């Protein structure tokens, strides 16, 4: 340890020690610096270890008053009581004084007074020697000085011996720690330590003072306090990557409302009004009634006709009566195809490619595989030459960009597409994972939205795909409410995400 590196307290104490000529006691240092003696002791040990101060132990005679002495000081010495009687009454007989003072006190008082010649006994009478009265005053003075801790002169010491013998004063030897600065080293250290730096400052750099200073060394091996970075949500990064892939494949992103009418979510997509997925177990209803549909009269009428009779779609429709009031019920959208339906109804010019990613809602009970809301992707491609084989190609191309080279197709059923297909991709170590549903929009749907080119569509839940690709075993973790988990999983999956 560098002896010139002094803490603030070390500097403070050392400067006081130096300022006192000779040595100094701990009590004094405590009084001057305002530090408790225990702290002072600790700092002195440090200064001693650096060789900047020396500690000396000295022994000192200390006089203190006994209980008797204290009493004598406050109530008067026994001989004073005697002299005071004699001063008031003149010479008194022994028996008269004994009656006043009691036998015991009379003997002490008489003994002390006679020794110094303050009184004499003539026959039976005590006579005062007025010239010697001062002797009593000087004893009193000494008691006072001892009591107040004043300094004792040599002259007093003989008289104190008498007082000790009388049991009024006690004599003790006391040990005392005295501190003395090691000059000139202490002075040098004090000077130099004011130039030891804890932190570099701009001032020190620009003034060049750093050249004359000592920069304090840190324990660089100790761990620092923890700080947390700002991080993106790992699942959002995954979704953003999918958006980028789709953009690079020529798709335009579109969006739509989450609180949706059954019309756009089901009817436009030719889902029969009594289709099971429109029931309580598959759709969330919102306690709100639309006053009017945000759709043109034409599209509403086409929807009615296509549902009831097939209209101009070339099919026979579902039969029965299509009810506008059912179509006007408000729900939380169950599929992102609702956004695709709105997009097609806006009459985009072919060729077109659109995609939408957003939350969809279905009344599933929460467990490790199911949530009542999750992210879904829906992508559509429309062109005069669009075909089922072209759709399979587009899907294959997309997964290839995702790093998934093996795709398997299986016939499937969706109310709004025909031919319909379900797809699996190979994700190790899971094997074949079912990830998407796709198909060519039914002519009934195209008739309703007013599109006159074939349109291929594919949709997929992104939560399960993210789980499979990122290796997350519980769907709830994608929406974790534990900030430490979010930080941890980001670190763990970092290289799969960027």
């Amino acid at each position, binding site marked *: 340890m560098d002896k010139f590196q002094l803490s603030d307290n070390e500097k403070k104490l050392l400067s006081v020690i130096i300022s006192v000529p000779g040595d100094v006691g701990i009590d004094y240092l405590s009084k001057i610096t305002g530090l408790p003696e225990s702290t002072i002791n600790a700092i002195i040990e440090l200064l001693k270890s650096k060789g900047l101060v020396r500690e000396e132990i000295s022994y000192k005679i200390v006089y203190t008053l006994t209980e008797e002495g204290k009493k004598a000081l406050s109530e008067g010495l026994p001989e004073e009581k005697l002299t005071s009687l004699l001063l008031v009454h003149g010479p008194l007989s022994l028996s008269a004084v004994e009656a006043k003072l009691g036998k015991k006190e009379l003997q002490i008082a008489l003994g002390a007074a006679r020794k110094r010649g303050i009184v004499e006994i003539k026959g039976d009478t005590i006579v005062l020697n007025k010239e010697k009265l001062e002797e009593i005053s000087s004893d009193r003075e000494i008691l006072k000085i001892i009591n107040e801790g004043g300094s004792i002169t040599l002259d007093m010491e003989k008289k104190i011996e008498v007082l000790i013998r009388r049991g009024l004063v006690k004599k003790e030897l006391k040990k005392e720690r005295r501190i003395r600065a090691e000059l000139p080293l202490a002075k040098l250290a004090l000077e130099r330590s004011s130039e030891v730096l804890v932190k570099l400052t701009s001032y020190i750099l620009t003034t060049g003072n750093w050249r004359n200073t000592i920069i304090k060394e840190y324990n660089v091996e100790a761990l620092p306090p923890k700080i947390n970075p700002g991080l*993106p949500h790992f699942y959002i990064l995954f979704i953003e990557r999918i958006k980028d892939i789709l953009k690079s494949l020529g798709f*335009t992103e579109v969006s739509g409302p989450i609180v949706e009418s059954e019309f756009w979510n089901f009817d436009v997509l030719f889902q029969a009004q009594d289709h099971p997925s429109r029931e309580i177990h598959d759709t969330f209803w919102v306690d709100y009634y639309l006053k009017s549909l945000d759709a043109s009269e034409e599209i509403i009428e086409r929807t009615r006709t296509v549902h009831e009779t097939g209209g101009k779609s070339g099919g026979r429709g579902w039969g029965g009566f299509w009810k506008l009031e059912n179509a006007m019920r408000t729900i939380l959208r169950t599929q992102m195809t609702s956004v695709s339906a709105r997009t097609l109804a806006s009459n985009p010019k072919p060729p077109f490619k659109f995609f939408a990613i957003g939350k969809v809602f279905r009344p599933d009970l929460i467990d490790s595989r199911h949530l009542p809301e999750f992210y879904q992707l829906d992508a559509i491609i429309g062109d005069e030459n669009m075909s089922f084989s*072209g759709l399979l190609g587009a899907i294959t191309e997309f997964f290839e960009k995702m790093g998934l080279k093996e795709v398997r197709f299986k016939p499937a059923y969706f109310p709004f597409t025909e031919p319909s297909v379900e797809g699996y991709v190979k994700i190790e170590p899971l094997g074949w994972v079912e990830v998407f549903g796709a198909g060519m929009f039914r002519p009934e749907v195209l008739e309703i939205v007013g599109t006159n080119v074939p349109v291929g569509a594919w949709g997929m839940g992104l939560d399960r795909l993210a789980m499979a690709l990122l290796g997350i075993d519980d769907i709830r973790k994608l929406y974790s409410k534990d900030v430490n988990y979010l930080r941890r999983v980001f670190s763990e999956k970092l290289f799969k995400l960027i």
Partner: protein
Amino acid sequence: MPVIYLNIERLNNLVGEKLTYEKLDNLLFSLKSESKVLDGSRVEVEVNSDRPDLFVSEGMARALKGLLEIEEGLFQPKTKESEYSARIFEVLSRPYIAVGVLKGIELGEEGLKELIQFQEKLHITVGRKRKKVAIGIHDLRKIPDKKLEYTMISLDMEMIPLGSKTKMKIKDVLKETEQGRSYGEISVLGGAHPAIISGGEIISLPPVINSEITRVEPDSRELLIDVTGTDRDSVIKTLDLICSLLNEHKNSIIEKVKIIEQPTEVIRQDPPLARSEVSLQKNYVKKILGFDIRNEDIVHHLLRMRFGISKEKDDSLDAIIPEYRVDIMHPIDLVEEIAMAYGYNRIPVKILSLKTEGSLDHLSTISRAIRLLLIGLAFQEIQSFVMMGTHAELFRTGNQKLLKIKNPVSEEMGWVRPNLASSLLTFLIENQHAELPLKIFEIGDYAYQIGEKITQKKSVALAIMKDELSFEEIQAPLYSLLSSLGLEVKFRRDSISYLLEGRAAKVIVNDIPIGIVGEVHPYVLTSMGIKYPVGIAELDLDTLSNIIARKQSSS
């Protein structure tokens, strides 16, 4: 999707070939089905709900025989006229009924099990849980009389419900039997219920329960089937479906029952086994599929899928749709049949080169910019649900009304969140043990009702929670965020119900309010059980992105 259990031996017998499981699995794959062997004797098959004909081994066998080319083209049902007849009276709550008879059936234990399973799956799917369509199956030989009636009866009449030994009043059947409790409400009307009566006995109480007296046994060889419902077409189609499929039994015959409608005396024969024809352009098939499938393949694959061809020209053909294929509504459905028979994994995968330019939605773009900046300001991004619990009420402001979900899965998800601030605070509840200060943000959707209208928006909200908090600690990062987007920001004192008065401000850019910032009201914090002060800010992304778009187009 319905899951059915089939006996492999029975299926093989119906197909007439011993299929290995692997082969069966592959064939079922082409029929939109997935299978799993259970115990060597049974197979579990997940069937698509648009193919009710595959809910039973008889239908599965018919389809498989086509794919295996054991038997191709249209199935020809064997029919004759029945001695049975049914008079149909006015049944307001359930007006339609169809009745058919099948003889020469061989069920056995396994066959009966499958028949009941078939009936149940039909009830759930095409039957819409018996509301639209319900099926009753009876042992024909136990039917008291050859003349049947379908009519409304009083709830005080009596019957022996299936599974019971004694007669019960109809009102007790509805109340006391399991089926009565599940389906008793569907068709009861004005103190009356639909019933099928024969020889003075109630043999069926559609859509609830049959009578014990006509119970079908494994050795029942003759069946009477009734189908009732609210949609005439579905009722008749369902009877057609069942009769046609059971006619797969080698020596079986369908007997057409004479139906006499009252009071019109209009007569028809059930099941009609009505077939339709669909005209298909060959080029349409090629165009939709996107590859040059040969004309003879189109025909052959249709025959393999058990369709008939009534007429074929160079460029088109007329396909006959059998009575049991209720899913064929449009020529496009035949295109899919051809594709399935061809094999999806044989279809060439084509990469079309379409000249389109990709782009992101402006909200995605602004969200990315904001995400980048907030991460730089050391905020952690989180993801919450749009649906939330009763805490939503704490964040309702002014004349907003929360959107309530009528059928929530739990109370924790009963409302649509009215802003993103509510989600951040909900997140903070769970993170009070984390190191503070905690800084989080979220970008997402929310909605509420105001007046008659629903407002739906996307916003970004940021929050900071720490032991001791000043207004500036949330205001400063917000200010930094907006300044980095090149916007000049003003703050105007505002009153916001969930923020502290005097510590809440409106955030204004170009004289347009775009959001709020402030310290969360202690009432809100304590109501949510949050023990630390929280500063919060929220910005409307639609407005923000409009301002930025305008700024960019003007510069």
